[in-house]
């Protein structure tokens, strides 16, 4: 119980209100309103997080709605999971907002941007600390709205507007599932509070597996899992800080967090767990495969994000609750770093196509170094953050005995380090390919957050490493419940070799002069085509979902026009004719009565109004006359 907790989301909400109403007046000061609110939230949250780390547990709730004996409660819950996310969101969010002041400096809708960011922060923080599905869902939807608004922030561009619409509609599919899941849970007798979920599961209502799968739909939509992953690459049309904050570090992680919150439910049903594992693994592999050939710097990172989210989902599906959460946290830091670095590169060069970059290392030292650290982290090179968390996931798969998945994940990890270093080498090393681009280093307000995030990317994995005796995992599970595994050298070896192998291969391909990329592409033409066309997902959707819908729509439209409108028109004509008759009746019969009444009243009032002249002096005279009359009356008596 901490009275300050509700302030954490409310401060950014207040900043949103201020910026949306007074943003025009504030101008560039709007940024400081938002950053101030986030910083204050962070300052409130950090002591609480440390208290949670020390074993505290904050929760409070109040009845919001009474539904025939059962009720919906609103409240907050600060347990290790939400504390972890709170830590990530407040710190990364604040840093990204600071970065945005530099990135968005020239934008005419500067204050609007920060208003949206603040609204997003408020929603995300609400989601993190909420203790029930309803509040969670509300925050979830507000985040969806913010995502829509921010992807389409430059709505003058058609591509941005379309991407925003695509993101919104695609996630909506998942959200509908999620909401149905919540309702199913409610039908199954749950109070919808996370803490009561275990009891609900124990009751073993037959619809619970369906509820789990439906809730997983929400994750698929929000966390861009196969087959609803198509919106995330397009979402890169938004400003880069948005990509970093929403589409890499926090919002997409909310889907994973949803599974974490509902883990008790999933755990109870093998089918659900298998489904989660399958989807996660497919997503991880497929996205990594597409990333191999992507040429847009942000798209590479987007597919990488999808892939890493697939990792987390897989881990959760295999029962690795702590592994998934751990990776969620480390990924937030290094992916935010990578996106911000990408943003810095875009800011400096003005292009997003890595084929036009090259040799930027000397020109953008800070960006390059931090980007390199981020890439090493994601590639899983020890002792950086990504290594520890990815190793945990691989270990989970290994210990689950699910070797196909383990192999797939190892392959994916290899591909990850390959495509990341393909990106690094093409961007920062070699020679400049386009001589029209004059790169320059970004301002300190952008490189500062980069360095902070880089340092975090190096060290944030350590609490989960064996050096700290897997403190983080213990923290998540409640100290004492977590059995510490001995180090599994097979997994460590697989992991390190996958990471280093990918890096070396990339170095051979893209630093050497062998022209390997073209050769490999022509050698494996079908696979290359599959990757560059992203498994034809967009085309399939367009042909088999959008087109039929449009067809049905057109059909319904013509039905509307020819049948229903005609009926309406006929009805109208009939009414017209009827009313013509009524008009005649009204005019000559009913009006006749009315007019007679009126004339009669007028006749009477013409007599009566002689009393009421409207002149105040006549009334005055009448008053005095009455006084005189009363006096005379009094005298008679």
């Amino acid at each position, binding site marked *: 119980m901490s009275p300050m907790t509700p302030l954490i989301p409310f401060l950014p909400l207040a900043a949103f209100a201020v910026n949306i109403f007074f943003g025009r007046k504030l101008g560039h000061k709007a940024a400081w309103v938002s950053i101030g609110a986030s910083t204050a939230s962070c300052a409130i949250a950090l002591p609480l997080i440390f208290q949670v780390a020390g074993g505290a547990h904050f929760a409070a709730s109040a009845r919001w709605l009474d539904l025939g004996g059962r009720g919906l409660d609103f409240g907050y819950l600060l347990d290790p999971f939400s504390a972890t996310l709170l830590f990530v969101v407040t710190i990364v969010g604040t840093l990204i907002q600071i970065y945005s002041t530099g990135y968005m400096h020239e934008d005419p809708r500067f204050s609007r941007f920060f208003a949206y960011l603040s609204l997003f922060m408020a929603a995300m923080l609400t989601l993190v600390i909420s203790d029930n599905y309803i509040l969670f869902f509300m925050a979830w939807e507000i985040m969806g709205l913010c995502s829509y608004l921010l992807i389409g922030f430059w709505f003058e561009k058609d591509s941005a507007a379309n991407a925003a619409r695509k993101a919104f509609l695609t996630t909506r599919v998942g959200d509908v599932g999620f909401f149905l899941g919540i309702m199913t849970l409610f039908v199954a007798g749950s109070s919808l509070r996370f803490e009561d979920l275990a009891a609900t599961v124990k009751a073993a209502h037959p619809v619970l597996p369906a509820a789990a799968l439906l809730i997983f739909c929400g994750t698929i939509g929000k966390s861009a899992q196969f087959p609803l992953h198509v919106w995330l690459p397009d979402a890169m049309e938004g400003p880069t800080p948005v990509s970093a904050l929403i589409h890499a570090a926090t919002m997409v992680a909310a889907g994973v967090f949803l599974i974490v919150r509902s883990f008790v439910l999933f755990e109870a049903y093998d089918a659900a767990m298998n489904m989660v594992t399958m989807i996660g693994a497919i997503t991880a592999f497929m996205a990594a495969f597409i990333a191999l050939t992507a040429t847009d710097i942000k798209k590479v990172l987007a597919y990488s994000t999808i892939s890493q989210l697939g990792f987390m989902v897989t881990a959760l599906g295999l029962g690795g609750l702590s592994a998934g959460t751990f990776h969620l946290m480390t990924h937030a830091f290094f992916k935010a770093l990578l996106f911000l670095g990408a943003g810095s590169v875009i800011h400096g060069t003005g292009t997003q196509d890595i084929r036009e970059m090259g040799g930027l290392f000397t020109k953008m030292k800070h960006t390059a170094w931090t980007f390199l650290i981020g890439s090493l982290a994601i590639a899983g090179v020890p002792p950086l953050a990504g290594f520890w968390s990815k190793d945990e996931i691989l270990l989970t798969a290994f210990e689950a005995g699910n070797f196909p998945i383990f192999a797939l994940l190892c392959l994916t990890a290899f591909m990850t380090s390959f495509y990341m270093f393909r990106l690094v080498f093409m961007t920062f090393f070699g020679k400049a390919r386009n001589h029209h681009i004059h790169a320059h280093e970004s301002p300190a307000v952008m490189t500062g957050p980069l360095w902070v995030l880089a340092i975090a990317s190096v060290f944030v994995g350590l609490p989960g490493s064996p050096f700290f005796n897997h403190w983080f995992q213990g923290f998540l599970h409640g100290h004492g419940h977590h059995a510490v595994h001995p180090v599994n050298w097979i997994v460590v070896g697989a992991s390190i070799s996958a990471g280093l192998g990918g890096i070396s291969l990339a170095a051979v391909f893209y630093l050497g002069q062998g022209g390997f990329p073209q050769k490999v592409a022509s050698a494996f033409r079908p696979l290359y085509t599959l990757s560059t066309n992203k498994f034809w997902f967009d085309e399939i959707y367009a042909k088999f979902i959008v087109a039929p819908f449009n067809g049905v729509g057109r059909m319904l439209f013509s039905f509307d026009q020819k049948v229903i409108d005609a009926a309406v028109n006929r009805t109208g004509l009939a009414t017209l004719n009827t009313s013509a008759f009524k008009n005649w009746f009204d005019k000559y019969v009913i009006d006749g009565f009315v007019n007679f009444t009126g004339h009669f009243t007028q006749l009477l009032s013409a007599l009566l*109004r002689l009393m009421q*002249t409207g*002149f105040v*002096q006549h009334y005055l005279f009448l008053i005095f006359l009455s006084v005189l009359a009363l006096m005379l009356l009094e005298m008679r008596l």
Partner: protein
Amino acid sequence: MIPLSHLLIFSAALLVIGIYGAVVRRNIVGILLSIELILNAAALNFTAFSRFALAGDQEAGVIFTLFIIAMAAAAAAVGLAIVIALFRVRKTIMSDEINLLKW
């Protein structure tokens, strides 16, 4: 000292003169003037009564007179403000020409 009844008759005369003016005058300012006469008749009565009252009760009448004077001044101020506002809108201050809401 002149007897109280003479003062009362004097103020009664002022009263009826005021009444006559208030009813008969067409000019609204004239009506206000007549109302001032009526108020003065009342005020005079109060002071006259106080002068003929017992010791200790005398302040009441005088204070009533002062209050009446204050209220009369207030009424005149508001009344004349209304007259001026009216004149600005209607260009007349004859009471029987201001008949827009008559019927």
